[in-house]
């Protein structure tokens, strides 16, 4: 008996020690993973740069600062590339080549230029010409910095040059052609949104799975924030007082774009009348009926262009068009009344007017 007693306990001790070691590792490892999660969590990285004559801000979610910054810089250079193609003022841009050769000859263009021109024509058709990229000759008559209103006669003269149907693109030959001499394309109403789309594509190619690109007010969001929530976007109050960013509503978005066109952006007041940059291609004068139009759909090129087009169509026709397209929208009419598409109610959170 005594002999047996001598053998057993040390074995049990060994067994107990094994249990301790097992316990020790489970407890420590769970502590460790908790700690690891806390410190290796994904962070939000943000960088801003002035591109396309506006402030471009790119926000990404990543667990590494290096890869975040690398992806952001690659996206910035993608936008820079597009800026070179679409710049209205640079004589070497593809856009300028098309404009210079208006009524003369077809111009061979890159895939990006072809794409964006294709999209402008699509939006022009869907908005019955309310969005028209060939507005160039009329918009150059206005000077929003010097607050100069052009003569009625000069607007009338240039208006015959505005018609998107005179813009011909040939996908097979990759060419673009403006039929009438003196015509100008201005891509200001779509290029920012298009750039946001391309920047998001670039980020995704650099293995970023969540982020936010905003080219001025043209915003495209994808993925979720580190806290698992969608990105929260504020819609500016079109009649904001003071310098503070005054927001009239917020909306949470993921894998969606939003753009807003407002009569307050580039504008001046002459004889009590507000002159802004959203010109009606039929009249050559600033469109009336809206203070601001926000459009929400997948592609930022479309939110950008449709925001302009719907603004010019006015609130009633605008909401109808949006419903037909399956887009969401928020329109503030000239009386300050808010119109929305049916789907978006409940998604937009309006702030009480202060």
């Amino acid at each position, binding site marked *: 008996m005594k002999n047996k007693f001598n053998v057993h306990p040390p074995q049990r001790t060994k067994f107990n020690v094994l249990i301790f070691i097992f316990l020790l590792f489970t407890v420590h490892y769970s502590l460790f993973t908790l700690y690891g999660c806390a410190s290796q969590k994904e962070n939000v990285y943000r960088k*801003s740069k002035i591109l396309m004559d506006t402030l471009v801000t790119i926000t990404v979610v990543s667990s590494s600062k290096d890869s975040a910054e690398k992806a952001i810089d690659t996206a910035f250079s993608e936008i820079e590339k597009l800026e070179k193609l679409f710049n209205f003022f640079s004589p070497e841009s593809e856009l300028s080549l098309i404009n210079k050769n208006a009524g003369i000859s077809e111009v061979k263009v890159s895939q990006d230029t072809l794409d964006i021109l294709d999209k402008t024509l699509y939006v022009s058709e869907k908005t019955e010409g309310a969005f028209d990229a060939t507005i160039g000759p009329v918009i150059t008559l206005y000077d929003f910095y010097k607050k100069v209103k052009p003569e009625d006669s000069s607007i009338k003269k240039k208006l015959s040059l505005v018609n998107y149907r005179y813009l011909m693109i040939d996908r097979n030959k990759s060419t673009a052609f403006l039929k009438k001499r003196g015509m100008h394309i201005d891509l200001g109403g779509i290029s920012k949104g298009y750039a946001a789309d391309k920047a998001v594509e670039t980020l995704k190619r650099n293995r970023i799975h969540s982020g936010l690109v905003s080219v001025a007010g043209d915003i495209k969001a994808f993925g979720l924030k580190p806290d698992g929530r969608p990105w929260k976007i504020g*819609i500016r109050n079109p009649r904001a007082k003071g310098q503070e960013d005054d927001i009239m509503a917020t909306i949470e978005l993921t894998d969606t774009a939003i753009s807003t066109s407002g009569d307050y952006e580039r504008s001046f007041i002459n004889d009590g009348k507000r002159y802004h940059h959203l010109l009606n291609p039929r009249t050559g004068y600033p469109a009336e009926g809206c203070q601001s139009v*926000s459009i929400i759909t997948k592609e930022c090129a479309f939110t950008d262009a449709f925001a302009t087009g719907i603004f010019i169509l006015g609130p009633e026709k605008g909401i109808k068009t949006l419903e037909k397209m399956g887009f969401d929208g928020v329109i503030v009419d000239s009386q300050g009344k808010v119109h929305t598409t049916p789907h978006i109610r409940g998604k937009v959170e309006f702030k009480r007017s202060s």
Partner: protein
Amino acid sequence: MNLKGLLNSTTIADRILLFILILLSLSGIIFIKEVLPKGHIVWIEVNGHPVYLLPIEKDRIVSVNGSEGNTIVEIKNHKVRITESPCDNKLCIQQGWIEKGSIVCLPNRVVVIVGTPEDELNKRVDAITG
């Protein structure tokens, strides 16, 4: 291994020490979270690259070399403004003093941001359209 055995093997001093250490370290974490982000910083960026990181508490005037020339930024009484700029429209100067938010001078590629990086990221909204 049961909880009672565990409690019996610890002395009262053990438990008090554990309690004090957890209390002190947790309150330390909370204290630091509360205190640290308040030190506002003035970031000045040119073309997307930060050139100055200045505490807002200290009054000073700096000159920033932008793409068109020198922009003069003044920090005074916890406020920031742009006093001189080579740009045409001078919108940045018209914006006047700011305590929070940003001043952007598009032509000269100069961005002045007041706040902490955390501040920027924990804003009510992530971006503004319009």
